[in-house]
């Protein structure tokens, strides 16, 4: 191959919630354009070839989630996979009741789904209150429960094994949202936990692609009309080159997952220490029981958008959960539920080391530049005397 089909990832990338493709997955995607463009439902040779390649990719991705290929469906987005996964549980149990138990730090698409009324509170670190969760499960109209394996905004791991046991004791099917953790956190999904599992290939260096597993024996079904593709869960078959790239990303990241996790964890520890040393900065989320690659902190008397611009000016690209950034009208519901500062928020999601070779230097530079960047923003806002 003459050259990689993508530009090298830019240095300074510290917002990899949707990061660049793993370079090998990028080459697989390009190869897929030639070999697997066809509709896998087609009966001609190109269609059959696409089908065979899709079957192989499905086996790899099913293995990633610890499920069987027949249990797995692929969806255009992780959000769509979450929505469909929950809708199928809820519809199948509609005679039991309409209610869905969910923690207050779940992803918006789940909190906005039908049936979620009073989200279970989380503590200051973003971890769900298991006593309140148990009480909510004890309601007599509970169709389903949802829990993230870990929070993608602040990194805090959830008590998955505990909540899975609580749900099983009540015979309530549990949807586990691993969209922020699969491939990054080796302690993501306890063996056999959850009736429905959802993940995102983007979390392990693949393209955005929703993965939905419904374990055999789970009561699950969507209202009619029946969907034709992906185990009856999707309107159309996935674009096979994307599935191939996702599977390749998994193969690549699985090779050195343990070393990658250790390195990322140590880098995040450094960011946490550097941020905590800046006056009036609060690092949020659990310091230890967390995703290896995510860290969030909030800067008092600073505007999230101005902070992002200041860091970008210094060649460091981060994200924010503040309302003042992007076009969001409300601050991050996760930060609000935790009772921590929502303004001046900075979120770092480390890319995989294999995706961003400059990652160590970028973290170094962030730690070095942060005190001055914060001071500059406060000077500009006239709050440096507070």
């Amino acid at each position: 191959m003459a050259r990689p089909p993508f530009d090298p990832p830019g240095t300074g990338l510290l917002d990899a919630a949707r990061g660049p493709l793993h370079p090998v997955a990028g080459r697989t995607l390009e190869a897929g354009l030639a070999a697997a463009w066809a509709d896998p439902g087609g009966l001609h040779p190109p269609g059959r070839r696409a089908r065979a390649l899709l079957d192989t990719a499905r086996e790899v991705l099913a293995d990633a989630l610890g499920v069987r290929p027949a249990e797995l469906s692929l969806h255009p987005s992780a959000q769509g996979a979450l929505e469909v996964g929950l809708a199928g549980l809820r519809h199948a149990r509609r005679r039991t009741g309409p209610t869905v138990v969910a923690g207050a730090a779940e992803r918006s698409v789940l909190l906005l789904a039908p049936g979620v009324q009073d989200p279970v509170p989380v503590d200051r670190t973003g971890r769900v209150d298991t006593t309140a969760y148990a009480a909510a499960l004890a309601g007599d109209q509970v169709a389903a429960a949802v829990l993230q394996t870990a929070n993608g905004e602040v990194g805090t791991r959830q008590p998955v094994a505990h909540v899975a046991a609580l749900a099983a004791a009540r015979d309530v099917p549990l949807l586990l949202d691993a969209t922020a953790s699969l491939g990054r956190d080796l302690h993501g999904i306890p063996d056999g936990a959850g009736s429905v599992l959802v993940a995102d290939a983007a979390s392990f260096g693949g393209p955005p692609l929703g993965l939905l597993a419904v374990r055999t024996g789970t009561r699950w079904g969507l209202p009619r009309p029946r969907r034709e593709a992906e185990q009856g869960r999707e309107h159309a078959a996935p674009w096979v080159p994307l599935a191939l790239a996702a599977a390749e990303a998994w193969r690549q990241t699985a090779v050195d997952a343990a070393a990658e996790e250790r390195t990322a964890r140590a880098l995040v520890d450094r960011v946490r220490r550097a941020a905590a040393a800046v006056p009036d900065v609060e690092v949020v989320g659990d310091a230890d029981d967390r995703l290896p690659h995510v860290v969030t902190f909030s800067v008092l008397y600073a505007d999230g958008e101005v902070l992002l611009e200041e860091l970008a000016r210094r060649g460091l690209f981060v994200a924010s959960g503040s309302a003042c950034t992007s076009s969001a009208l409300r601050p991050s519901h996760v930060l609000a539920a935790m009772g921590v500062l929502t303004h001046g928020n900075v979120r770092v999601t480390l890319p995989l080391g294999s995706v961003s070779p400059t990652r160590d230097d970028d973290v170094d530079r962030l730690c070095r530049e942060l005190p001055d960047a914060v001071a500059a923003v406060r000077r500009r806002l006239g709050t440096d005397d507070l």
Partner: protein
Amino acid sequence: MNGPPVVDARGTRCPVPVIRLARAARGLPSGSTVVLLADDDAAWSDVPAWARMKGHEVTLLQDDGWTEFRVLLGEPRTERGHADSST
């Protein structure tokens, strides 16, 4: 005029309400009260979070379309970062 200072930050968005509140509280002795009026959603979480970080106590009074935050100032704290939000 013996009432507590009132900061009317209605119509402003984060981080302005907290900044104006902190400015009004600056230099006041502990035990003083400062009142903030705000209608920005972010103030709901940010004013209590600021008060917790600074050792103040805050009570919220909901009105129609806006909120009154009544802050009782605590002892001044040294300005250090916080490594762990659970402490």
